[in-house]
């Protein structure tokens, strides 16, 4: 995988995060739907144990909801790219 392949792959991921994610379905997902229908959704509304810098995929300080989601998507995509790549690199060295 050369530099060009990496950029194409990462570019596709960034486009998905930036352009598609703001238009994702706002409906609850499968587990949330089951939790809601069976009355245990509120069990999950506990104080988070760790502080999350970008809760609910909404980048803080951006008022436009779609832009905030796109920004969160870009930040997360770049972060996991570095983490996944970095993990593989570290594994190879050791």
């Amino acid at each position: 995988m050369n530099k060009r392949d990496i950029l194409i792959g990462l570019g596709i991921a960034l486009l998905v995060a930036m352009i598609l994610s703001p238009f994702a379905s706002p409906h609850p997902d499968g587990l949330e739907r089951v939790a809601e229908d069976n009355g245990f959704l509120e069990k999950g509304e506990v104080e988070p144990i760790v502080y999350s810098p970008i809760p609910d995929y909404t980048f803080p300080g951006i008022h436009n909801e779609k832009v905030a989601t796109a920004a969160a998507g870009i930040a997360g995509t770049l972060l996991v790219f570095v983490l996944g790549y970095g993990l593989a690199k570290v594994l190879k060295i050791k």
Partner: protein
Amino acid sequence: MHIPDGFLTPNAWVPTWAIAIGWISYCLKKTRAILNDKTIPLMGVMSAFIFAAQMVNFPIAGGTSGHLLGGVLAGVLLGPYAGSLVIAVVLTTQCLIFQDGGLTALGANIVNMSLIGTGGGYLIYKLLNSSLPGAVGKKIGIIAASWFSVLLAATACSLELAFSGTIPLKVVLTAMVGVHAFIGIGEAIITFLVLSYVLKVRADLVYSYQLVEVSHE
């Protein structure tokens, strides 16, 4: 399918954390042996793509949505061990940075989507692949494994919820399998399209194809 904090009691989340740690350790060991110059950046790219794709919820019936889990996608492209690590990286980042999935439930989420969704999904793909030869067999393998991987992950999730006393098993299993039978169709379509694209442009990057190449040399 990311379980938040509060859904599971310690008698469910402690053992699932232990299983998750065991699985990740095993995957780290196995991945180290197969890593090469192609797979190292691919782990980064796949993490990025699956994270991005998981943000795109698609609507299914009844005011409900679903999103790609990516287990079979990662498993077929990177092999079951590196693929499972990619899913674990995505799940951990979602939990710590985006408050998607609880920290106590992270072990269970890794068991459901990495161990079962990726490792189990890959196993189904391999079994179908060897029993149905040729390109058609591969396609059927990808589609069926993707669908089953979601169903199996939903089943594991149901067991954990029932074990926690959150909801009776019969109720949660029926509901979870019912809704994820639809979400699994989305999983199968996306996985099939993405893998078809990668196989078309860069088949040499696909783990199961590399094995074939090696055995032919």
